[in-house]
């Protein structure tokens, strides 16, 4: 029974919605680009919470996380549906159209700091999963408290859909030359200590413990490896000279691909992080630029940007530099320049931005078919980065009039701003389980 419900739920979620993203801020009229919102394919989830301060705080965060997962229609029924100590009223939940219900109840903890989170299957009228959440003693608005609830929310998403949510991840970005991080719900914004000089192009190691970025110091543009917890910093050897940009760790974390520019042009190089030595050159593009390498999840291929045909466009090659070919098809002389590629966690697509009539827009190219799909259409949109769930992208958009970070869900097309300070750029979405110590 439970199996059957889960199977149909997964099936419903996996139903191929032939859609591009919906730009929810676009005004009616004018050209809307590839936008088809298909409602009704998501299950409906009710959020229940008994009275009490801790429960309220947990429920509020949980509700937002489940909403932002974009996998459910979130329903908030009246408080009377959940009477403490008894099962929820499944008839009312059914009448509200809820397929699932999450209940937050005080855990039988004498000190009263824990809550229990339950996932109810409304149709069968039973509890499917439960989880004891012991809350940090720090205040309900504190970072540790919020992260604990985010982790619980990701687990609820996993119970309901088979794959965890991304609420407990973090997005690194640059604002006015400084490194910052922010949670995907837009809270927890905090500076990340870096060199005193402007930073560019931050990226995460796969284990989430190290970041790499370009530092625009006075005497050069080295690539810096920085331990997030301890703050230890090293220069990638050889990057003391020339222009050194767009670092990205290989999926096994053992190599760092980056671009090194000399007076003869810019090429892709690999640094052996594991052995802390040995920089090898991957591309040879005399007087052209080859940059922004991004790894396929199996570590076998690199997508990258090259200006070999004049305008920068997207190419792909084997990780040893062989078999180079165009990745995102373009018309010579008419297609705008393409930049900022990032390979999706599922390996199927590469997100990038391409100029359309001089304005950058976010695109996704399907790696197998080479079909290119435009995701955005309003304002300038660039520097897309994948969430670990492979369905959300964070990107920089000027659609509101200032440069902010936005998140789009590629399945539903929903868009929302997360950083609204007006100078954010170059976001890098963390892997799961990143070091989230506030800096």
């Amino acid at each position, binding site marked *: 029974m439970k199996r059957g419900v889960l199977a149909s739920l997964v099936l419903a979620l996996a139903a191929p919605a032939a859609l591009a993203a919906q730009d929810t801020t676009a005004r009616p009229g004018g050209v809307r680009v590839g936008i088809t919102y298909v409602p009704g394919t998501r299950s409906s989830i009710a959020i229940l919470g008994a009275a009490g301060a801790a429960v309220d705080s947990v429920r509020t965060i949980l509700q937002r996380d489940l909403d932002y997962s974009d996998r459910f229609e979130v329903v908030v029924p009246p408080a009377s549906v959940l009477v403490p100590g008894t099962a929820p009223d499944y008839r009312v939940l059914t009448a509200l159209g809820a397929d699932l219900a999450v209940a937050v109840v005080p855990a039988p903890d004498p000190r009263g700091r824990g809550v229990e989170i339950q996932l109810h299957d409304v149709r069968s009228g039973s509890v499917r999963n439960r989880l004891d959440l012991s809350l940090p003693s720090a205040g309900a608005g504190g970072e540790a408290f919020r992260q604990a609830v985010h982790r619980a929310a990701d687990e609820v998403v996993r119970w309901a859909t088979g794959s965890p949510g991304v609420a407990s991840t973090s997005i690194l970005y640059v604002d006015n030359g400084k490194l910052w991080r922010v949670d995907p719900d837009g809270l927890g914004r905090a500076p990340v200590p870096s060199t005193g000089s402007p930073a560019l192009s931050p990226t995460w190691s796969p284990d989430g413990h190290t970041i790499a970025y370009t530092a625009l110091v*006075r005497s050069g543009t080295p690539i810096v490896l920085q331990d997030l917890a301890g703050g230890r910093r090293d220069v990638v050897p050889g990057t*003391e000279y020339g*222009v050194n940009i767009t670092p990205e760790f290989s999926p096994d974390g053992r190599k760092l691909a980056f671009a090194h*520019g*000399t*007076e003869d042009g810019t090429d892709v190089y690999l640094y052996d992080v594991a052995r802390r030595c040995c920089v090898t050159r991957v591309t040879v593009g005399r007087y052209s630029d080859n940059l922004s390498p991004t790894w396929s999840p199996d570590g076998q291929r690199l997508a990258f940007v090259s200006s070999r045909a004049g305008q920068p466009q997207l190419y792909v090659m084997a990780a040893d530099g062989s078999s180079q070919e165009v990745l995102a098809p373009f018309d010579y002389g008419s297609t705008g320049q393409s*930049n900022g590629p990032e390979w999706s966690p599922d390996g199927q697509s590469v997100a990038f931005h391409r100029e359309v009539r001089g304005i950058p827009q976010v695109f996704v190219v399907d790696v197998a078919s080479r079909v290119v799909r435009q995701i955005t259409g309003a304002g300038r949109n660039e520097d897309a980065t994948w969430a670990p769930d492979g369905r959300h992208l964070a990107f920089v958009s000027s659609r509101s009039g200032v440069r902010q970070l936005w998140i789009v869900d590629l399945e539903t097309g929903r868009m929302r701003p997360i950083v609204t300070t007006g100078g954010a750029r170059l976001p890098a979405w963390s892997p799961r389980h990143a070091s989230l110590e506030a800096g």
Partner: protein
Amino acid sequence: MTAKNLFSVGALALVVTAGCSRNPPPPAAAPQAQGAADSAAARAAAARRDSLAAQARADSLARANLEQSRADSVRAEIQRQGADTGSVAVSPGLAPAEASELADAIHFDYNRADLRPADQAKLDRKFQLLQAHPRLEIQIAGNCDERGSVEYNLALGERRAAAAKRYLVAHGIATSRISVVSYGEERPADPGHSEESWARNRRDDFVATRGAN
């Protein structure tokens, strides 16, 4: 000054640095003097080779030293936490008019890194300044407009700076006297978003980094 004029100045400079020892070619109609002239020419050529080799060695040594000290300062700089407030003390020993001629920026077409013919006169003047002040060292900073990605513009800026450096080096300035840096789109000369602003921002800036006379 035209490019052709510059070429002759460059050739002259090469002769001067080679030790002023090159004789005019002997007249063809003087067979009895041919042997003596030949050996004189050979001696001169050898002297010139030695002198060039010595200069190349000195250049490469200077470059190695420069690179080492640059690498050291890069490693020191990334350890700093605070804001970068330091400034380089420069006393280039240039007259004010010369200083502004040195600083005169050159400009580029969209997504291009090749020198505009119209800018050659400006580069020729910088070449003369570098000739006139042998201890002057400069940095060429390549800049871009805000279109294109931040990172691509860093690469493009490097090529723009390198194009100007190649021109000066091709005409005889020692490569160790010219460093290049790219600021991409990070340091616009004009904060606007119009075609005119972009045109002003696609440029090479020239600054003296050393060279008190």
